């Protein structure tokens, strides 16, 4: 089972669209796939038309008072399951702080489904918190969507430093792949095109595929479906398919 998290310190960068579309493409290839919506705003949950509710809240899951599996919902698509968001996830840090080995809780909880899924996608809230440290520890790769601006370049650097500083104390982090890619690219903006040229050279795992700011991605909210499900021939569909091939190859 490979665990992939979409993550960015900054919000509003196309994180949830990435999880919803990549997990869909992954499941269509036949891999058993689970999306865990860790963002209390529940956007991924909304896109899959599931109600944002987990019995007992995040607390019951993280303390293993409730099986993960009992809270999983089948989506409308084969091989694709969802663990919905819950509003209580906003207090995740408080719950985690009271646990032994607070940065490793999420990894332990995911062990429950290790044989049930080939890929788990974690959709994470922005910011660096105790919850995000859990995500780093539990994941094989971080998919980092970046809008091609100088500010984004800085957040990538911050994230890199944060992980680098903790590598010595945490073996799992040494294996964590950082996979940044450009998202919401606007080809009419000069700065976007310049960043597309220069930034990838600064980070080893930078993915070649980028996702343009396309209306089909925005229309996901109207259709409440992944783009490839309602617009199979959209350029956005092709882009997510290519992105998935790159990610899958990178995590092996």
């Amino acid at each position, binding site marked *: 089972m490979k665990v992939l998290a979409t993550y960015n310190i900054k919000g509003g960068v196309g994180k949830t669209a990435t999880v919803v579309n990549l997990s869909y493409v992954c499941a269509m290839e*036949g891999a058993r796939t689970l999306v865990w919506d860790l963002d209390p705003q529940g956007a991924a949950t909304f896109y*899959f*038309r599931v109600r944002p509710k987990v019995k007992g809240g995040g607390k019951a899951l993280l303390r293993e008072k409730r099986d993960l599996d009992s809270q999983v*919902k*089948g989506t*409308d698509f084969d091989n694709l*399951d969802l663990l919905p968001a819950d509003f209580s996830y906003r207090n995740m840090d408080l719950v985690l702080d009271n646990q032994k080995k607070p940065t490793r809780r999420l990894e332990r909880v995911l062990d429950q489904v290790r044989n049930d899924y080939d890929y788990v996608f974690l959709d994470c809230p922005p910011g660096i918190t105790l919850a995000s440290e859990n995500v780093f520890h539990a994941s094989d790769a971080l998919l980092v969507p970046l809008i091609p601006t100088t500010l984004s370049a800085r957040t990538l650097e911050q994230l890199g430093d944060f992980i680098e500083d903790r590598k010595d104390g945490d073996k799992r982090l040494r294996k964590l792949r950082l996979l940044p890619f450009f998202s919401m690219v606007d080809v009419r903006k000069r700065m976007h095109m310049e960043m597309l040229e220069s930034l990838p050279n600064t980070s080893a795992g930078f993915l070649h595929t980028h996702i343009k700011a396309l209306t089909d991605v925005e229309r996901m909210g109207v259709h409440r479906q992944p783009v490839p499900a309602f617009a199979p021939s959209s350029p956005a569909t092709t882009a997510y398919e290519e992105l998935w091939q790159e990610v899958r190859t990178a995590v092996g």
Partner: protein
Amino acid sequence: PICSVAAPEAPRFVWELPDGGIRERLEPVLEMRALLPLATVTSRIQALNVLNSDGKTVARLFLDEGLSLCRESDESDGSPEPLGDLLRVQPVKGYDHELADVLEVVKKQLRLRPADDLFKSAMDKLGLTPGNYSSKVNVSLRSGTRADDATRMVLEDIFATLRANEDGTRRDIDSEFLHDFRVSVRRTRSALNQMKRVFPADSVAHFRSEFRWLQQLTGPARDLDVYLLGFSGYQAQLPDSAPDNLESLRRFLEAKKRQAHAELVEGLDSERYAQLLSDWESFLSKPPDPKDENDAPDAVLPVEEAAGKRIWNMYRRVTEAGAAITDDSPAEHLHELRKDCKELRYLLEFFQSLFPTERVSPVLKSLKKLQDNLGEFQDCEVQSENLRGFGREMMEQAQASADTLMSMGILVDNIAEAQAKARAEFYERFSNFACEDNRKLFRDQFKRLKGVAAS
């Protein structure tokens, strides 16, 4: 589903499947057996999604209209047989309450009755029960039955297995049809040989020689199957760089196998084989003739007595011959012992139902271990001899490179080593079988019966 796999077409063997959950689960079940299409089921499917107020699918309904089944067998005229209509309700994970509501509507409002699943209905239509084929002899005999009647019943059961495997042997669907066919022939010969006093000698003499012919006919193809089944094992014995050296041996064996199989089919198509089948069928269905009793001294004995006597005799023969084996004994002595063990094993299996299972099965277990050891020894003997022969043949036909011959040399060496190991282990396996507990068990269970008969 627990797991699934995308396959371009129905696979024949498990090794044709891509790696993954399905293959892992099927490997131990299928081993070297082929998957066969038995029937095609067709229907017009209407799929309906049950949505909640968010437009989320919470259950799926599939209406199979005009389900029908077409048999794949050659005898079938291809006309579809109706299986009726079916409404399938498929749950969506995490929506149990909604599923309960849907089922309520199906039962109460639509008034539909629960049906078997489609796979089971199709199997019922075909008259098949999954997992009910076994090559084992399975006859429930009653104590006191005349020995000739009971032996006929055993032979009938073996004959049914032989017939069940004939078509697959002919078409070479997989190696196990021929294997089970051959085992049936060997069991038949063994029963005729061991129970010869229950039938008049002149009534079975012909069958004994004809079944010997049939066994010889099927031998070469089976031997080659064994080499081909074990081929990846051969390759694994070679250094990493060398497994390809054996490719010409594989081609050689495959060509030989095709030839052997063609000869086997010719034999099965012959008048001689057809005659044997019809003669044997009428022998098996013939009611016992009172006159037989004069020519067959054990015909009217109760079967448990006749069988017990034979089992006790074979047991003594095996233990005496085994005790005489030393490091200096020639390989043929071990080979003879192996054949005797097989006869004893068959006898115990044929008449198992007459004796208490808890007594027979531990004996069978230690006998099986001894047989495995003798089998390993004998297989090594035959294999190294044959590999040398294949090497010479390939040389003559200019089919073998020096690399291939050297790789075959490594195999012959390894086989000699395995054979020495088997021989060293023989003594322990034998003494486990010939132990005092087993001797007592054989004496009490089988010799006693003879004593009763004499008194």
